[in-house]
């Protein structure tokens, strides 16, 4: 069993840490206060190759492995959750979905510009009336000559206001049919006639991140834009979530580390009852708990990343990692605020932002309740993964670094 990171992975970790500290950290407090996304951030991340880090070179990616993706997310969310969210939706949910399910033509047309950051990608699954109940979504795709006509509304969509492509999930069969067979996935360009969108504000956390809504009113998409087969949408959505949840899990490990480091720093500076706060046992207990949570969160996501590298199905492990890490991140952020006392309650320090940012991840990409049900299902034998028509390809350094055939 090999627990050490490769020199390649260590270099990736250090590079992204430098980027996040130098370029994002100095501005994040102001952006969060203003509820404003950094307009140049996605382009900058694209220019550095972050948006295609674990995609094959022939699809415009950087040819690194899935563990590197996790390390990147940990470093990004150490600074702010909004940075990691970009990778979650653009790469984790959308681009990895295209890599897994897309035809070669779709990969060349959509994945390549996404991997380089030329195009921004999103994931449009959640609706005003359907979140956890994916099979109950109301958007429709009606077969028409040469393609489909999309009708419906999506909300709580990260990057909705800036995305060029989104994966759009809609009902292609009537509600009477098996709900899991009724959905179909589409690659939707947001400049198609009939697409409307807007931003949402007033969020509790991730205020420096872009979140919005999308609506399709009689939007035509050609049949070439269908991802996978008709009726395969539910399985595709769940497979995409295996990618997205992995980035949320690894990011949450970074958030826990940020809470730990901030608490250690403050506890060593601040004096109480004639001694450093760090020598008060009740504070030590909180800090020990954060260190423990980080170790568990990190091991869980690295295990899931390793399984992705091996080409092993990891729905169960990824769900466990996401569930544990996001709950732990919220608990650690709350304890970090407690360590900081009244200062922690003010935005003079970062920990109040960590607490607000941590809360959303217990809702998006599978609520904690959904993950509880998933884990119970596996443990009780009620849930068994069946092979997919398209599996996420295992990481093969030779294949990943090979240049395009043209």
């Amino acid at each position, binding site marked *: 069993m090999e627990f050490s990171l490769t*020199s390649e992975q260590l270099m990736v970790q250090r*590079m992204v840490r430098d980027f996040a500290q130098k370029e994002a950290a100095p501005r994040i407090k102001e952006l969060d206060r203003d509820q404003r996304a950094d307009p140049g951030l996605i382009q900058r991340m694209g220019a550095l190759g972050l948006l295609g880090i674990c995609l094959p070179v022939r699809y415009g990616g950087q040819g690194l492995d899935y563990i590197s993706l996790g390390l990147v997310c940990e470093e990004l969310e150490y600074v702010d959750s909004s940075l990691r969210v970009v990778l979650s939706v653009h790469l984790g949910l959308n681009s990895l979905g295209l890599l897994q399910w897309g035809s070669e033509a779709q990969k060349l047309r959509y994945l390549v510009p996404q991997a380089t950051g030329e195009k921004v990608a999103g994931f449009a699954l959640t609706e005003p009336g359907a979140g956890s109940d994916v099979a109950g979504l109301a958007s429709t795709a009606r077969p028409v000559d040469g393609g489909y006509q999309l009708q419906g509304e999506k909300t709580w969509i990260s990057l909705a206001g800036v995305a060029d492509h989104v994966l759009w999930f809609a009902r292609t069969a009537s509600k009477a049919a098996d709900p899991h067979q009724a959905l179909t996935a589409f690659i939707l360009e947001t400049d198609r006639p009939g697409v409307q969108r807007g931003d949402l504000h007033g969020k509790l956390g991730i205020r420096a991140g872009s979140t919005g809504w999308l609506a399709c009113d009689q939007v035509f998409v050609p049949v070439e834009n269908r991802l996978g087969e008709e009726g395969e949408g539910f399985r595709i959505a769940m497979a995409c979530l295996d990618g997205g949840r992995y980035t949320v899990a690894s990011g949450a490990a970074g958030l826990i580390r940020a809470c730990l480091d901030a608490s250690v720093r403050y506890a060593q500076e601040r004096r109480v009852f004639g001694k450093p706060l760090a020598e008060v046992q009740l504070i030590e207990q909180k800090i020990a708990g954060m260190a423990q949570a980080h170790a568990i969160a990190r091991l869980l996501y690295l295990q899931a990343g390793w399984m992705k590298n091996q080409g092993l199905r990891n729905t169960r492990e990824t769900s466990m990692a996401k569930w544990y890490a996001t709950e732990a991140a919220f608990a650690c952020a709350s304890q970090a605020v407690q360590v900081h006392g009244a200062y922690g309650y003010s935005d003079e320090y970062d920990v109040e932002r960590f607490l607000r940012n941590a809360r959303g991840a217990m809702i998006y990409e599978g609520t904690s309740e959904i993950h509880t049900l998933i884990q119970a299902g596996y443990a009780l034998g009620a849930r068994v993964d069946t092979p997919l028509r398209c599996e996420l390809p295992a990481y093969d350094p030779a294949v990943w*670094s090979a240049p395009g055939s043209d």
Partner: protein
Amino acid sequence: MNIVVCVKQTPDTAATVTVQDGKVSWGDAPLVINPWDEFAVEQALRTKEAHGGKVTALSLGPEAAKEALKHALAMGCDEAVLVSDPAISAPDSLVVSTVLAAAIAKLGEVDLVFFGRQAVDSDTGLTGAQVARRLGWPSLSLAAAVTALDPGAKTITVARMLDEGRQEVKAPLPAVVSVTKEICEPRYPSFMGIRKASKAPIPVWSLAEIGISAAPQSVLTWPEVFAPPKIETQCEIVAGDSAVAKAAALAARLIEEKVI
């Protein structure tokens, strides 16, 4: 142009330095490329991008120092060479400069050698100048900008950053330049560069391979190393009903403490 950039592997500057048993300890700090050397690598790469040629990163150190060279490769250097020999231990700058000068001579027709201004662990700032002296080349230290470089006429002009101001210095090539952080902003290693660097062969040269038969010995020793005494600080809030009263109370306290 044939450019060489010399890099050292040092502890991360975020590390806590302590003294244990008369020796400096960096604890288990991660080892990184000397941060000053990143500016030297960047300047070497920019010189190559402007004038063509290749950049070779060179280091003296244990096998683990290859990681610092990989960082230089990941930033874009074409080749890297490590000089490593069990006969060298705790080298002072005279030893390091002897070895690096011999390795540069072995690299062939070199036009320019870049150094960071100093290493964050030993902080002598001498190695660049000593290498220049051993090669018999001009030493341009503390360069804050390369203001002109003419590969045809084989001349370089740099602006040196001095306490008194800036000084323009022109010298013939080949030359040794040590750079300050004002010269450029180091790029991040690219992911493509990281992939290539992790697979790149890094030749290891022994002293014999660079023509040194007897290992040079350090002449500097550190008979005593001690940590600076810890400064105890106390915080005192000066109270008062108004700003004037607070200022008067503060002035009284400062006079009492003989600060003013």
